[in-house]
């Protein structure tokens, strides 16, 4: 059997938790499909430290691919460089986490390789079949990927982050890029700065819905509770649609999928597509004045109350607990 290759995404010179999850998924894939688990780190240069760090997560070989056109992630350049590596090394299975980059790149890579794709998988079975949610998580499909290579993107909540262990080797590989075929230009990234934990990594997530009524109330009502809990802030699609908060806070089928230890849903009804993004949370709390709201059907603790009264009260009660 051929080997597994993990695409190791990095941000500001570090691996986010989602990449450690990809390492774990890659190792799981290698254990079940056979072969060794390698990783690839790509960029314009200066990747030595990241490559050796990747090797310390039990990757057999870390391929370090550097090229000026890989300075920023752009689908066409990254796909071309990655496909060339896959072919040169005889890789059978490519694994990436379903982040914004993973979702953008893996289908393009699959098309370039003529390979089957399983998107956003939640598990790998002992027989090598994979499980993926469909229909907003109302269906779990078991899928068999025929032939090799094959491409898998992994749902971040479905695997635990890899732990350090073992020391693989690093191999520098020259990128082969037909620059004339690269037509996309990276113009810029406007980062949303926040001191709060990253939504997909937080231990506690507090999400608001249309019940908050406007963006101002996210700030003055919800945020004090978010910060008192040291939580990340999320939102329902309805709140994003209404323009209360930016889309990168959206939790749900078409937004981010989270599974924190505690998920507090405030003033959101619990539409099917929202539940798809949070129902694997360990403990779910719902605060809503409508006792018929579907969110109560998945909540461990439900409080039927006016959020404008309950949320500040909860913030005070949490503060008191700390002292």
């Amino acid at each position, binding site marked *: 059997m051929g080997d597994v290759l993990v695409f190791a995404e990095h941000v500001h010179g570090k691996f986010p938790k989602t990449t450690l999850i990809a390492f774990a998924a890659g190792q799981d894939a290698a254990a079940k499909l056979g072969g060794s688990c390698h990783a690839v780190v790509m960029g314009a240069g200066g990747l030595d430290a990241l490559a050796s760090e990747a090797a310390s997560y039990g990757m057999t070989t870390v391929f370090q691919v550097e090229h000026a056109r890989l300075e920023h992630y752009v689908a066409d350049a990254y796909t071309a460089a990655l496909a060339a590596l896959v072919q040169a090394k005889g890789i059978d299975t490519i694994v990436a986490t379903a982040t*914004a980059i993973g979702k953008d790149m893996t289908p*393009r890579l699959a098309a370039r390789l003529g390979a089957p794709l399983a998107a956003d998988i939640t598990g790998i079975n002992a027989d090598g079949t994979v499980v993926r949610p469909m229909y907003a998580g109302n269906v779990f499909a078991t899928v068999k990927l025929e032939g090799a290579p094959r491409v898998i993107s992994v749902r971040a909540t479905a695997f635990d982050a890899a732990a350090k262990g073992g020391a693989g080797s690093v191999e520098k590989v020259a990128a082969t890029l037909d620059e004339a075929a690269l037509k996309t230009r990276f113009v810029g990234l406007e980062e949303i700065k926040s001191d709060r934990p990253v939504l997909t990594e937080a231990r506690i997530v507090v999400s608001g819905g249309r019940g908050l009524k406007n963006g101002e109330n996210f700030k003055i009502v919800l945020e004090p509770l978010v910060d008192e809990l040291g939580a990340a802030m999320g939102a329902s699609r309805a709140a994003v649609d209404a323009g209360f908060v930016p889309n*990168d806070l959206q939790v749900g089928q078409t937004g981010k999928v989270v599974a924190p230890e505690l998920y507090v849903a405030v003033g959101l009804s619990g539409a099917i597509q929202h539940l798809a993004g949070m129902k694997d949370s360990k403990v779910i709390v719902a605060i809503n004045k409508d006792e018929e709201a579907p969110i109560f059907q998945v909540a461990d603790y439900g409080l039927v109350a006016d959020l404008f009264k309950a949320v500040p009260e909860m913030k005070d009660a949490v503060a008191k607990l700390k002292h």
Partner: protein
Amino acid sequence: MKILATVKRVPDPETSIKVKPDGSGIVADNIKWVVNPFDEIAVEESLRIKEKVAGSEVVLVSVGAKVAQEQLRTGLAMGADRAILVVAEDGLEPLAVARVLVKVIESEQPDLVVMGKQSIDDDSNAVGQMAAELLGWPQATFASKLELAGDQKTATVTREVDGGLETLSFPLPGIVTTDLRLNEPRYASLPGIMKARKKELKEIEVGALGVDVAPKARLVKMEPPPKRQAGKKVASVEELVHLLHTEAKVI
């Protein structure tokens, strides 16, 4: 300019989906079928370009069962000029759909293709990227803003990525996939619905395109998700925080 927008027939997002007892698929009865919400955004964006750029044409394309005519008519009623339905069995995998689309794109030669970022049934989020690669075209997925240069030769796209907004620029033709905040789709007007009946809706049998649509990601079975039990109602914030601390031990 010529813009091609995709339209997929999917279950209404509020429909509760049930798996057939034998796990071979979903129960198709009592489902209300709609245009994939992200495709509606794609049609709307195409129409907005047409309204700005004189002489533009918006062509819709769908790949699926014959009944998808209904969703194409909805797009025509919104204001698209004509539609193409590639009649195929439902449930083709993303790479097969991308190959079919590429055939249509090669024959229509649009300047721009706008597609939903994902269909809310399969949830793969893949066809746009795959078609772009097969064509050797640039792609911009998860678009929240699309701007065309004055000569309509270049697109600048703002994308919703992890941690912020990214801007890409590329020469046309290219493929853009839509995110939620790109626009708010219009409703079809009554005159629009009347006019749509007379617009061209061409059908092509998938077999006539000569593409490989054989599945490589084979569905073994479908299952419903594990049920989550509803918990308890609490009477007050005080009780809630107390239980989170002492019983659930999460704060």
